[in-house]
């Protein structure tokens, strides 16, 4: 035993003497984690959150969350002598007076973007592989919560510096609040302590941005990770992998080293972006005043889809009985996002209701083997993408020499037409991929080599695929449709007939598949050769 091993042993003993943790630690330090690049996406979110905590705390030491008017006396010449809020002035000071301050602001902003990209791509991985299925529905819901709060947190964050661009964003948020029927103007006046913009809003959202929401994030992320730990990670199908086991590397030391190393890599990349890639150069926008606006106003991308929906909304308001309802604000600003996020949160339950599948799943699906789910996902992405593109319609129009009018009509039509088309194409694509898998298993891989048969014709040589590959392509199970009875034993129509009919139809659609290849078929084919 080396001296070092003896020390490590003593530390372990010291801890156990005081906590009795040996049994628990032994089990958990050797916990097995499956390895796949897509399992790093969640880690990216976690690490960028840590980076946000660190860089954000740095910013709080200088940032002054106040709308008190001050005269700028700092070193940035073009704004010298101008009246502005203390929030804006202190953000300028962080950028120009504090060494490394601009770097930290840019790291904070880049980390926020990476955090949001990480969440969205992680969510897509979980969705398209079916990792949200029982027993992981809680974590799906927590994830949707983190996504929603992340959008809010990011919006509040870039509202803090109180520059012309962010003030315009707050103005729009205020208009959404104000548009709420019945309570809108009251809520707006409470939130802003009077008429917009007032002097209370920045200090208030500051508390929410640096205390309330980060606290909630911390709690949600903790529960999220504890559940991953306890339920064990899902794994992709493959030889030797079953619903009953986990194949991977033990936490100590391999996984710890890899995960720890990955944290530093993410931090390093974020620092690199912060060093070389300018983001949110607030000194160019000037201080906020409601009488001005910067042309080409753009929110961060995770808000862009919302802006895109607002931009394409038809100009409809209802004026009746002395009241106004702004559908042009309520539909794109609240109703559609509400439907989108509720649908997202409930998806696991909708799917298990439709397929009648109530079993536990630990093996992931290959997206092609669940054509319906995959097609729904691509459909939803298409919808969001069209909105996101329309969020930059002015920039796209000028870049590609289109008129705003053309862009707007393109988006209005595309948002209705493209998602269903995306659904159909994706479903077909999945099915043809299934067919290709089936052919591969039954007929082997094409080698490109031609041989001449005794009869004189040329045929291509096919090479059988490995047993591992064949298993990978056929290990998934294919669900039968539900076929709920529509009449009971005595021939009377059952209660809930319509519900059952819908369920039957949906489950039939979900069960459409190319039958997977079997050993029996393989042998039959061999017999023919």
């Amino acid at each position, binding site marked *: 035993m080396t001296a070092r091993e003896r020390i490590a042993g003593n530390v372990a003993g010291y801890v156990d003497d005081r906590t009795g943790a040996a049994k628990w630690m032994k089990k958990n330090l050797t916990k097995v984690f499956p390895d796949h690049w897509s399992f790093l996406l969640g880690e990216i979110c976690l690490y960028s959150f840590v980076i946000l905590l660190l860089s954000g705390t740095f910013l709080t030491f200088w940032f002054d969350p106040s709308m008190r008017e001050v005269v700028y006396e700092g070193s940035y010449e073009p704004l010298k002598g101008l009246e502005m809020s203390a929030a804006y002035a202190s953000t300028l000071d962080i950028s120009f007076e504090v060494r490394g301050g601009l*770097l930290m602001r840019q790291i904070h902003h880049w980390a926020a973007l990476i955090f949001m990209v990480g969440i969205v791509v992680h969510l897509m991985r979980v969705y398209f592989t079916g990792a949200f299925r029982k027993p992981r529905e809680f974590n799906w819901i927590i994830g949707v919560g983190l996504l929603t709060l992340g959008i809010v947190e990011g919006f509040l964050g870039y509202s803090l510096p109180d520059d012309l661009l962010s003030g315009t964003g707050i103005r729009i948020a205020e208009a959404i609040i104000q548009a709420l029927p019945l309570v809108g103007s009251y809520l707006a006046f*409470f939130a802003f302590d009077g008429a917009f913009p007032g002097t209370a809003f920045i200090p208030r959202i500051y508390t929410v941005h640096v205390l309330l929401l980060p606290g909630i994030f911390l709690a949600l992320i903790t529960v999220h990770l504890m559940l991953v730990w306890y339920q064990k990670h899902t794994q992709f199908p493959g030889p030797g992998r079953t619903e009953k086991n986990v194949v991977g590397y033990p936490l100590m030391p391999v996984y710890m080293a890899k995960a720890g190393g990955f944290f530093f890599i993410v931090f390093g990349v974020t620092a690199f972006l912060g060093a070389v890639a300018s983001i949110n150069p607030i000194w160019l926008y000037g201080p906020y005043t*409601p*009488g*001005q606006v910067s042309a080409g106003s753009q929110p961060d991308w995770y808000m862009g889809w919302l802006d895109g929906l607002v931009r394409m909304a038809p100009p409809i308001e209802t004026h009746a009985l002395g009241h106004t309802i702004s559908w042009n604000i309520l539909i794109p600003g609240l109703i559609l996002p509400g439907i989108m996020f509720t649908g997202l949160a409930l998806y696991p339950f909708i799917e298990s209701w439709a397929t009648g599948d109530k079993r536990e799943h630990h093996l992931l699906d290959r997206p092609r083997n669940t054509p319906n789910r995959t097609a729904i996902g691509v459909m939803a992405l298409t919808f969001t993408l069209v909105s996101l593109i329309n969020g930059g319609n002015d920039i796209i129009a000028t870049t590609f020499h289109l008129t705003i009018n053309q862009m707007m009509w393109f988006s209005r039509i595309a948002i209705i037409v493209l998602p269903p088309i995306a659904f159909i194409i994706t479903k077909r694509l999945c099915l043809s991929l299934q067919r290709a898998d089936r052919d591969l298993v039954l007929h082997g891989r094409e080698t490109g080599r031609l041989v001449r048969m005794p009869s004189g014709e040329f045929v291509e040589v096919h090479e059988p695929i490995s047993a591992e590959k064949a298993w990978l392509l056929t290990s998934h199970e294919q669900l039968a449709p539900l076929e709920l009875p529509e009449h009971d034993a005595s021939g009377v129509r059952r209660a809930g007939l319509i519900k059952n009919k819908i369920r039957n139809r949906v489950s039939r659609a979900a069960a459409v598949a190319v039958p997977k290849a079997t050993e029996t078929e393989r042998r039959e084919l061999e017999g023919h050769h």
Partner: protein
Amino acid sequence: MSNEIELIKDPGLPAHVHRSTDTDPKAAARAERQVAILFGLSALGTITLIYSYIFIKDDVFVFIPILGQTHLQQLGIGLGMALALFCIGAGLIHWAKTLMPDEEVIAQRHEFRSEDEDRSEFIKTVKEGASAAGLGRRPLIKTTLGAALGLSALSPILLLRDLGPLPKDDLSKTSWKAGTRLVTDPGDRPLRPEDLEVGAVAQTLPEIEAGAHRSLADIGKDAVLLIRLRPEEFNLDAERLSWTHEGIIAFSKICSHMGCAVALYEQQTKHLLCPCHQSTFDVTRAAKVIFGPSARPLPQLAITVDADGYLVAQAPFTEPVGPSFWERSS
């Protein structure tokens, strides 16, 4: 039938393939050196950071292709930090991949559902607990508890009441009154019609007493755009025409959609454009919406000149300015 079909079988976990670092001590020594070099590079990064922080003056800019004029100190600190962090990460991962055991291990899962016995006892306990509390049998307690809980939820709402004042008619009123002079923003100079050429635009605010201060909230409602056309270019009804003066027409600058400043004026088409969601208003037709999500024209301010020849408001706005709200009647 289905049990006759034979499925393709799981061949099991493939045999482990050793890495060169497992079998060749030279390869292992090389990997160890590589890890050490990465950690060394990280130290170099930190040194760069320290050097930049202390020794690079903060007014030095250098031109770097792609990046353009770059603040050298920030760049040095940032690149040093990036190198320091990235290389620690790369070193750790390289170490794990080449020198730590890479044999895959298999752990067993268990179903989360408990044994039937535990489960039924658990369910029984919950049921017994619930019935021991006897909520179902004591409707009085149930109702009063429900009411008490519901009512107590009101307190946080009530306690937040003092966040702000009631809106009253604040959203419907601006500072414009009959006779208020229009003054330039910025500059606070009163305007005469001849200060505006045909085709020109001016941003204005209501005049305030010398030394008085405008709040941003006032500007957010009072900002007005003046545009001068040739009088015959208007396409207005008699009333609205009487609100203009010698071809000068005044609109609220606060967008009737969501309140951005309607900042862009296209001289050729005589359109006002809001950069936020591209609502477009036709100046010749009293700012009628001709494109975009806004559902209402920009409110028009009736103007005229006072005895000294300065532009003034004839009357306050006849409707609320800015985005819609529930109490708005038109």
